[in-house]
């Protein structure tokens, strides 16, 4: 292997000796035990097999030292099993043995978690350090980014999007950029990720172990009370549309794992996100309640006079709003259906003074109650 300088510190050696006094170590390619009769430490790594006295522990080959610092970091410095699993994922631990990983960590290993780019690097003593920035800032000069040291700052960074709009769904792909956590510990990187994308690591970890508990739409329907009882009447077909509308990767970075029920899969794409979504979130439930109200209406046949271009224009306006591209349309780009001047022109031409398309009343029988909205629906 390449010569990696992994000097073992007194603290690391003491922890190693103390652990071996209790029990043998087997971790990530390292096997070690203490032979009390011979007063010798037997250490086995893929390339070396040694037996040394306590005094000579500090002189083991660089390869073995790397395995020992790796053991020390993961078992003595990282606080919990979930954090350990996450940090190991961050450095692709399952794919590469320790020496290769140490080489790669010298340059930094990048991984993406939602819109976060997390880079793991290595200090001489084997301690990992973590840098977190927005994926869009991957190539940004660090001087141009606002530096943060407190992982809980991530909460505030994630509250508003780049336009200053509130992000009620923290897993929406609208995280603002321009910030940097240059140097976090393992515990801190976990807290930062938890603040950006709450509970995603723990659910990912459950999934990794084959223990992800999924609550499907029908479970959610059964559980609701109060104003959300209404989702029990949402037609199944509408759940299809709702998931396609809300859970698509363009709207939410979680990978939807819930279905109508265990035996009734939904057709909509669940997405490719790293972390799973194990049950309908409160946004989707609240939206489902609105759609349940709207779906109570019957359809009606209307007659409209439109030119073919006008019909297409209306369709393209809907696309522009749904795909959030309205802001990209240039002021004078009259080719674009959702251009403001084009839309204003259409309104002048086709809407009457009451805002009715083609002068066609919404409710010909004169009933102006739109039936879809009731008021007192705030529970906040």
């Amino acid at each position, binding site marked *: 292997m390449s010569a990696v300088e992994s000097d073992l510190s007194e603290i690391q050696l003491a922890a190693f000796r103390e652990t071996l006094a209790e029990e043998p170590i087997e971790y990530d390619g390292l096997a070690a035990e203490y032979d009390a009769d011979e007063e010798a430490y037997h250490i086995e790594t893929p390339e070396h097999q040694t037996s040394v006295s306590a005094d000579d522990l500090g002189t083991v080959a660089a390869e073995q030292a790397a395995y020992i610092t790796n053991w020390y970091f993961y078992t003595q410095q990282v606080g919990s099993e979930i954090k350990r699993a996450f940090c190991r994922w961050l450095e692709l631990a399952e794919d590469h043995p320790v020496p290769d990983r140490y080489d790669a960590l010298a340059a930094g290993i990048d991984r993406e978690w939602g819109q976060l780019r997390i880079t793991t690097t290595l200090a001489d003593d084997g301690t990992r350090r973590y840098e977190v920035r927005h994926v869009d800032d991957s190539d940004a000069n660090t001087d141009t980014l606002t530096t943060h040291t407190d992982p809980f700052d991530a909460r505030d960074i994630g509250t508003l999007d780049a336009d200053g709009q509130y992000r*009620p769904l923290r897993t929406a792909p609208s995280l603002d950029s321009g910030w940097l956590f240059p140097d976090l510990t393992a515990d801190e990187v976990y807290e930062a990720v938890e603040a950006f994308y709450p509970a995603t690591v723990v659910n990912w970890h459950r999934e990794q172990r084959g223990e992800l508990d999924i609550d499907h739409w029908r479970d959610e329907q059964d559980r609701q009370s109060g104003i959300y009882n209404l989702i029990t009447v949402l037609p199944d077909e509408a759940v299809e549309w709702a998931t396609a509308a809300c859970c698509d990767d363009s709207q939410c970075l979680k990978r939807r794992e819930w279905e109508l029920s265990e035996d009734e899969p939904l057709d909509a794409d669940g997405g490719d996100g790293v972390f799973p979504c194990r049950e309908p979130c409160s946004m989707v439930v609240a939206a489902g309640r609105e759609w349940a109200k709207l779906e109570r209406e019957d359809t009606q046949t209307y007659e409209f006079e439109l030119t073919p271009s006008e019909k297409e224009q209306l369709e393209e306006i809907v696309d522009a709003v749904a795909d959030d591209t309205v802001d990209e349309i240039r002021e004078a780009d009259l080719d674009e259906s959702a251009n403001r001047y084009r839309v204003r022109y259409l309104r002048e031409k086709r809407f009457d003074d009451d805002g009715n398309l083609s002068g066609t009343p919404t409710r010909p029988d004169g009933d102006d109650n739109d039936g879809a909205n009731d008021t007192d629906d705030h529970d906040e």
Partner: protein
Amino acid sequence: MQSLVIVAHGSHLNPDSATPTHTHADTIRATGAFDEVRTGFWKEQPSLREVLRTARGDDIYVVPLFISEGYFTERVIPRELRLEGWDPSLWDSDGISADTATLVASDIDKEVHYCGPVGTHEAMTDVLVRRAESVTGDPSVGEVSESADSEARQTESDGGFGFAVVGHGTERNEKSAKAIEYHTERLRETGRFDEVKALFMDEEPEVDDVTEHFDSEDIIVVPLFIADGFHTQEDIPEDMGLTDDYRDGYDVPTTVDGHRIWYGGAVGTEALTADVILERAADAGADIGDAIARVRQQTKPTTLVAGD
């Protein structure tokens, strides 16, 4: 290992709804009284459904950052946290005396201590007083003879203050009015304020007519709400006549019908609320050392607070 889990409502619309929860969590985290402090929300992430799995402790204390007992504390939270065998009678409460119940949360197969809401704890009265002090900028407000800084009150009256505690009313939740009445009575018992009254948004006596309910020239008005939102920032200031349009803001105090109104906004944003969360956990058996004393000291206002 000891974990504190603060659960709150949150909002899809208002980014400030979760702010007090996060701020108080930070305050408590800084005391080191718990190995970890987690937050969970009905409307935000992590959801109430998933917050317990983010907690690692052997001893988990769940404190609802809610004003009163009722639908959320008795039904929604226990259901979403999956507290096995929960029944409101376990709290043995008369509507304001819920303390704690210990139940297994099936999400994590561990026992958790489910505490009563912050709003009905007696220490919440102290937070109302603290808000009166911070909104007037006078740590002795109401105590006429001891008032350190009568000028800060800008008052030419005899220095006495009225205090209005504002709540929703019974329309939404009968027990929410109980919490208001409870603190109103406790404030009255302190004898510090000349008049203390409970006012409501959607029933008599209404906050709209605040000046009719008080003789005192100076009236402190504090809504018993957890977070500022459209009720506390828009409705109440407009209803009381502090401003025609909340977007224009208002002065503290604002003179209305010859009374100076010192409007304090939602009491839950007062830093001392962190203390009530600690009290709830301590009452449920959490070992928090001198954290309560430290939070009380640390959250003392050092500067004047303006209402808008």
